[in-house]
């Protein structure tokens, strides 16, 4: 399995996606640093209002989707691809419900520094998940319509981006949610 990989490692699409991810990392790093810089100002609000338990469950869905994505790419499996999309959608629904609850409690991007940084960081991540779902949907559609025309690198590239979105959440979840336990 590993031996078959090097053929796509130097593919230009995959390299392009990898470089794109590198620049996206700088983007998220800046936003995360802003969150950390303002952490103390919002810590009381964060401790009182963030639902770690529920979010952990939805996070597990996202983390699991990386595994299903790997299985999908390995076997070029539409079924695993659909599973990945479902798990990603579950995560977004979870995030949406968390947003709805916070907003109903009067915590929004304009209410205080915590809201500003929380909604910006998690919102930007959510938009990237949404973008990933669009890419997954495009890959699935292409595979349904003309499976032979889909290059192996398309699976690899979409997978790489999806794993990145997942890794960003590991960081965001740690900083925003697990950070309240400190």
């Amino acid at each position, binding site marked *: 399995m590993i031996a078959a990989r090097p053929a796509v490692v*130097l593919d*230009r*699409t995959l*390299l*392009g996606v990898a*470089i*794109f991810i*590198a*620049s*996206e990392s*700088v*983007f998220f790093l*800046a*936003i995360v640093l*802003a969150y950390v*810089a*303002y952490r103390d*100002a919002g810590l009381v609000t964060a401790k009182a209002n963030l639902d770690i338990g529920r979010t952990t469950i939805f996070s597990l869905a996202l983390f699991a989707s990386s595994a299903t994505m790997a299985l999908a790419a390995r076997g070029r499996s539409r079924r695993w691809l659909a599973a990945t999309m479902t798990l990603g959608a579950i995560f977004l629904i979870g995030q949406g419900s968390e947003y709805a609850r916070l907003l109903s409690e009067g915590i*929004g*991007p*304009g209410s*205080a*520094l915590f*809201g*500003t*940084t929380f*909604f*910006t960081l998690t919102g*930007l991540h959510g938009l990237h998940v949404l973008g990933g779902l669009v890419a997954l949907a495009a890959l699935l559609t292409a595979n349904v319509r*003309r499976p032979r025309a889909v290059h192996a690198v398309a699976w690899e590239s979409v997978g790489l981006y999806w794993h990145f979105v997942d890794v960003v959440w590991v960081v965001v979840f740690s900083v925003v949610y697990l950070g309240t336990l400190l």
Partner: protein
Amino acid sequence: MTAIPLWVRRPTGERVGWLRTVDHKEIGVLYIGMGVAFFAIGGIEALLLRAQLATPEANLVDPETFNQAFTVHGVTMILLAVVPLLVGFANYLVPLMIGAPDVAFPRLNALSFWLSLVGGILVYFSFLAGGAPDTGWFSYAPLSERAFAPGTGVDYYVLGLAVNGAGTIIGAINLAVTILLMRCPGMAISRVPLFVWMTLVTSVLILGAYPALTAALVMLFVDRQLGGHFFDPVSGGQAVLWQHLFWFFGHPEVYIMVLPAMGMISEVIPVFSRKPIFGYGFIAGSSVAIAFLSFGVWAHHMFAVGLGDTENAIFSATSMLIAIPTGVKIFNWIATMIGGRLRMSTAMLFAVGFIAMFVIGGLSGVSLAVVPIDLAVTDSYYVVAHLHYVLFGGTMLGIFAGAYYWFPKMTGRLLSEGLGRWHFWTTFAGFNLTFLPQHWLGAEGMPRRVFTYATSTGWGPLNLLSTIGAGILAVAMVIFLVNLVRSLRSGEIAGDDPWDAFTLEWSTTSPPPPENFSSIPAVTGRRPLWDRKHPERRDVR
């Protein structure tokens, strides 16, 4: 087989028109056209500023207009003129120089250009929407917050720069992948022309720097549109966070603008000295050093903020350190010329002009890295003089050198050398007359971004001199424009290789065919065309 829409296909031979083209050469020309257009607009804004400042206590424009003019002038020249011009040359030349048929992602390339252009149009749309941004090109918080900039100008600044930046980032990915994976056989990374090296390093800088700007813009957007508090000190935010993020982008941006121009003159000087470049490895290596260091110098824009003596000392040291790899290149270029058979064509004149002017700008830069000096002259015309010596005296002269050098390749016709000489000397005189006096004005304490000054300051004569210089510079640009238009129509036919040059782009026709090369020869050295012309005196590497 389902039909693939026509716009998806690469054009093979037939033109598909400027709107749909995905050919790297045509997109390069589009970028250059965008750069020229915005350069003209930014130049007119500069003339407006100089006209207002020509005499003390003038009322040619009101303060609000003046604020908008200097803000948009900065944004335009940096992001909508210089960067597109450099990216345009890179787009056109990199595939030709490395023996590739196109860039790695032709359609993404078109997307990059159109995003960059739409970003620029968004910035200018602000004029129609109730007033341009008026908070400086760096748009410092909290001045840029809704409370102090209630109009929509800053919102268009945010949108325009974000869209333009997305285009630039995508373009950098494209160029980096092209250089890394699309070189022809034998074209090792240690053999690519130095302009390609500079483009690669610049792409890395763009990928590291622009996302920080995008992040800052997103935060400003949240503050202005969603009532956020990132840069709002009243609610616990920190205005200085904007400065950190902005200059983390802003200083690498300086090198994004100057490295490709350095690459251009590194192509021009050897050809017109009839020698290989002196110290290829040092020029390439020192650029990598500059790239690393450039991410560690941003706070030298912030000495006056009060970060603390330790922080200031560290950033002062790194800023001086970066002068070393920059200075190395100056010696490389001079050593290339020593002992060479110099042909002082217009391209070469501009390249030599670059070296002279960039040394002045570089030295005033080192003086600004000294904290006490910076504290004395920060936000004064001394800084304005410095940055224009680097960006006009450096980058723009480099771009003009590149324009005279590669225009024949792009169009098949030579630019007029006669008009070229007029262009060079009026530029040289006008530029120095405009910006040299500003050193003294700054040292005497004339603040930048202020729409007028009292007669009693005694700054009138030097300002008048500066404005006269700007007028001469405008004449120089008109001469260049006339040269462009006339040569395009009736310039001397160039042939494939009018300069007896060294690199692959001159081995194909002028202008090159859509597929660039009919056949790619195996490259065995750094000067493939020289090797082909002089097989008995091939380069050893």
